[in-house]
């Protein structure tokens, strides 16, 4: 089985970093992975995306026309990539910056105010990790414990960021699993 997760947003939102954490966690759990970044002439504030391919068999094409899942951190990236998703995929929508839904009824839409939840933790820059925590909690494509261990390892060199990011994962999980939040914005 192969699954693909696209992360998209603007430069500076930690798009490539959250994709890397997912790839690292999937590798730790024994999967084959490929992390493919966008590397055009980008700048802070421009668009950024990356694709993580996870498989239990060697990965053929790292170029995927229709990914299964999308973590959309801003509106332009959701509008650009949501139409490409395979039916029955999952789209995580950062509702703090995206005031609309994906307009598709064949996707599982997970509405999480990732930026607001991150700000509530004292630093809006962990919104990518909030979104990642929510995405994994909702889809279950990896064990949440693996994600926690990976985040600890990833930020081991920057100790003061470990707690922030672990709290961000947890905030994301709580938000994604909150039945009251539902599909509304």
């Amino acid at each position, binding site marked *: 089985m192969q699954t693909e997760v696209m992360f998209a947003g603007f430069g500076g939102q930690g798009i490539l970093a959250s994709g*890397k954490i997912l*790839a*690292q966690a999937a*590798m730790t759990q024994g999967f*084959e*992975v*490929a*992390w*493919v*970044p966008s*590397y*055009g*002439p980008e700048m802070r504030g421009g668009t950024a995306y990356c694709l993580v391919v996870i498989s239990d068999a060697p*990965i*053929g*094409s*790292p*170029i*995927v*026309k229709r990914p299964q899942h999308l973590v959309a951190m801003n509106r332009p990236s959701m509008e650009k990539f949501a139409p490409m998703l395979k039916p029955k995929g999952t789209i995580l929508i950062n509702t703090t910056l995206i005031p609309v839904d994906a307009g598709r009824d064949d996707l599982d839409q997970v509405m999480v105010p990732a930026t607001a939840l991150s700000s509530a933790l004292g630093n809006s820059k962990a919104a990518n990790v909030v979104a990642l925590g929510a995405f994994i909690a909702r889809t279950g494509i990896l064990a949440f414990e693996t994600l926690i261990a990976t985040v600890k390892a990833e930020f081991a060199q920057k100790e003061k960021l470990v707690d922030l990011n672990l709290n961000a994962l947890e905030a994301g999980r709580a938000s994604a699993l909150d039945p009251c939040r539902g599909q509304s914005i």
Partner: protein
Amino acid sequence: MAKVLMKGNEAIAEAAVRAGCLNYFAYPITPQSEIGEYLARRLPEVGGMFLQAESEIAVVYMLYGAAGCGARAFTSSSSPGISLMSEGISYLVGAQLPAVFVNIMRGGPGLGGILPSQADYLQAVKGAGHGDCRMFVLAPASVQEAADMMADAFALAEKYRNPVMVLGDGLIGQMMEPVSFKAQKAVAMENKSAWATTGMSARDGNTPNLVKSLHLDPALLNQHNLDLKAKYERMAREEMRWEMYNAEGDYQVLLVSFGTMSRVCRTAVDMLKAKGVDVALLRPITLFPFPEEQIAMAAERSCCKAVLSVEMNMGQMVDDVKRSVGRQKPVSWYGKCGGEVPTPEEVAGVVEKTIADMDFT
């Protein structure tokens, strides 16, 4: 060794250090600059030399100097930078010096773009430099293979005293995949006392070693080229590498594709198989020497009706595929360039159209 998640560029750099290469000269260019960035930090840790030159022309002659002294050295660049090194590559071939080049290809011609491409195929395998000059060319299709090939590249360069190129593309350089480095220890350069300018006191005998590519006597220059030719032929006999996929049973179409593009083709083969269409893939791993016999034999099978060369360029390797297949089967090309990478769906569509267009009556 445990697997680590690394960019292709970083894996190439680390693999070079582990292969015992302590000399890296380069000039930065996207999409391979992480190689230099990594080595600027890594090489001083192991007593090595990282040097950012003033231009690619300077780089190639730094390699010439290092190699001439019997030092293991390499450089990396991307398409336009390799063009600037062309003269020096020919000098390295002429002087029979070992050196490793990494080309992480981007779109061309000219300054082109910075996205993945395979548009330097002809340059690498036919036009590396002026004169009867050939480079040994390896084409990785994954980060793991790029790392493994670096170790092989130094060994091949030293065995044949000839430049070796690892020809990747922007995707191989920028993508992260799990990689494990071979545990084996780097071996010292074996044969250098016979040719390197290491100083008379460093070896026995009274004959000085001379590193040069100038031979004004036509008979000597002809003989020199015959010797080089014999070396290229030996490479073809001893070092040819290729890989077949889905070729055990019958297949209607044979795909030939290398590097990143071959992985897309592999997925296209799987997609077609799921629809009941059998297609085989032959991936040349060495581009020079080129596995022409293997392609000819795969095309000769009576089940095979057509051959399709799939490339991220406007049709370069297809010339070599045609030469290999001859007139026995139709050979066509499909590809895109400039940073566009054909998707598995597009490749599968072209294969289906190729089959539909064939006249079986």
